């Protein structure tokens, strides 16, 4: 689903964020991406989302080389990727409905379709009752779930999440992960960047560990923990 081939990213100014990274996320797979802040997690996700371009190497999504996607095509390519952010990035002056409907409005759906799909997405994250609320009336966990609803409302085959549980307490974090697991069970590929190792310890998912711009580990999370190579999380 996502394949990196010798991807190097050097930012203007000489800071090397990624150094010859190789990995492969299988179709329909759910995986974690871990590492310290500054290890290159965000850069890796930005390359997938086409917010940055690799300095060298190639990124493939579903076999398509992203280097060949022109600037004009980027918006259309992004519609195939659902993105979830640590700070949810909702528009605070619009209702939950209007936030979640955004990707559908952009693609030009009929209002009746929009209503149906928004209701479906909000139902999946358990917030159907709050469809007409304004974001500032919701709790942090609820906001994050609205963000997930927005990411999945047009049913993208791939979900990227950058520290989706970063601002949440452990109980809420587990709830959010459950949502991702449900989505993954219907065939959506999910890639979650997190440094919350306690969270992924309980789950048997593929984990990629980034250290100083390189993938140092590539295995199932539970076995990784046994080897206890992780340093304490700040």
């Amino acid at each position, binding site marked *: 689903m996502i394949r990196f081939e010798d991807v190097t990213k050097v930012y203007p100014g000489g800071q090397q964020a990624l150094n010859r990274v190789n990995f492969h996320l299988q179709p329909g797979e759910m995986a974690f991406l871990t590492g310290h802040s500054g290890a290159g997690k*965000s850069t890796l*996700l*930005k390359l997938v*989302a086409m*917010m940055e371009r690799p300095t060298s190497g190639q990124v493939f*999504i*579903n076999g*398509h080389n992203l280097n060949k*996607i022109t600037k*004009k*095509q980027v*918006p*259309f*390519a*992004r*519609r*195939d990727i659902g*993105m979830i*952010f*640590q*700070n949810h*990035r*909702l*528009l605070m002056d619009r209702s939950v409905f209007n936030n979640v409907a*955004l*990707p*559908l409005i*952009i*693609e*030009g*759906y*009929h209002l009746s*379709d929009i209503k149906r799909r928004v209701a479906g997405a909000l139902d999946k994250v358990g917030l159907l009752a709050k469809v007409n609320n304004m974001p500032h009336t919701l709790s942090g966990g609820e906001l994050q779930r609205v963000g997930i609803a*927005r990411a999945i409302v*047009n049913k993208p*085959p791939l979900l*990227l999440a*950058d*520290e989706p549980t970063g601002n949440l307490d452990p109980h809420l974090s587990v709830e959010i992960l459950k949502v991702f697991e449900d989505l993954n069970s219907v065939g959506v590929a999910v890639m979650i960047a997190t440094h919350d190792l306690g969270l992924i310890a309980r789950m048997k998912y593929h984990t990629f560990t980034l250290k100083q711009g390189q993938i140092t580990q590539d295995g199932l999370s539970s076995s990784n923990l046994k080897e206890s190579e992780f340093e304490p999380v700040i």
Partner: protein
Amino acid sequence: MSLLFSQRKSSGANAANPGHRLVMFFIRHLQQALASIGELWRMPMSSLLTMAVLGISLALPTTLHLLMKNGEQLRGTWDNAAEITLFMEDGLSEIQTKTVLRRIGLYEQVNQVTYVSEEEALDEFKNLSGFGDALSYLDKNPLPSVILVVPTEQYSSPEGARELLDKLQEQPEVSFGKLDVTWLEKLTAIVTLLEDAAFALGFLLLAAVILVIANTIRLSILNRREEIEVLKLVGATNDFIRRPFLYTGIWYGLIGGLIAWICVSLILWWVEGALIDLASQLGANLTLSGLDLSEFLILITLSSGLGWLGAYGSVMRHVYEIEPENQL
């Protein structure tokens, strides 16, 4: 249109047939146009202030245009004053006079010919000069007979009338002719100067309208930076993002144009009495004409166009610049 996953059925609108897609295209434009009105309505005071600035900027060139238009009408009445006076030789017989009158009347440049005999001229002079009886002591009438020639409209301009005068002076019966056009030439020069100045001023004010709208739209883009970033993240094209701003520019221009029209109508109503009075003092019969329908439409179209242009400049510069950064 799914780019990365060809098997994925993506858009609701794109799945439909082309005719339906076209309808949806217009519906979406209409939605965004209406949404941008809503956006203006959210800050009614500041929107209205901007529109008022635009309206006043547009009102000035419009007023100048009306002044020129009505001035043209005044000049039309004064042009007829380009009357040629021909002084005849002494001692022409009645037949000779009739012949020359007919000959001049046949000129295609001549609209009207009036003959004033020596006696009539003396009578008129007696009445107007106030010398009255004193003149009757003269043993001989000193005044020549006169033909007054009014040229056709085409030959009423200073140059045309002068050309006609030269022709008429070649007649043997004519002693000499006189044409008082110097004041007409001065008036024409002043009007030309005013027109040029009005054009320059109008041009500057239209440029100001574009700049005001461009700046307003720039601020509104920067205020909504967060929203633009999010839109780009969920796959909005630049076209989609800039459309509401372009519509906002058009609305600013349109409503600015309407305000300008109201201002001009008020100004016209305010000065109408004084202007007509002035015109009648100058011997002209003036009916003040305001903006007619086509001029009104031109004003509205022009102001909306300027609004679009100003917004377009801002949008091209700023919407493309904003790219989602930081987290993911």
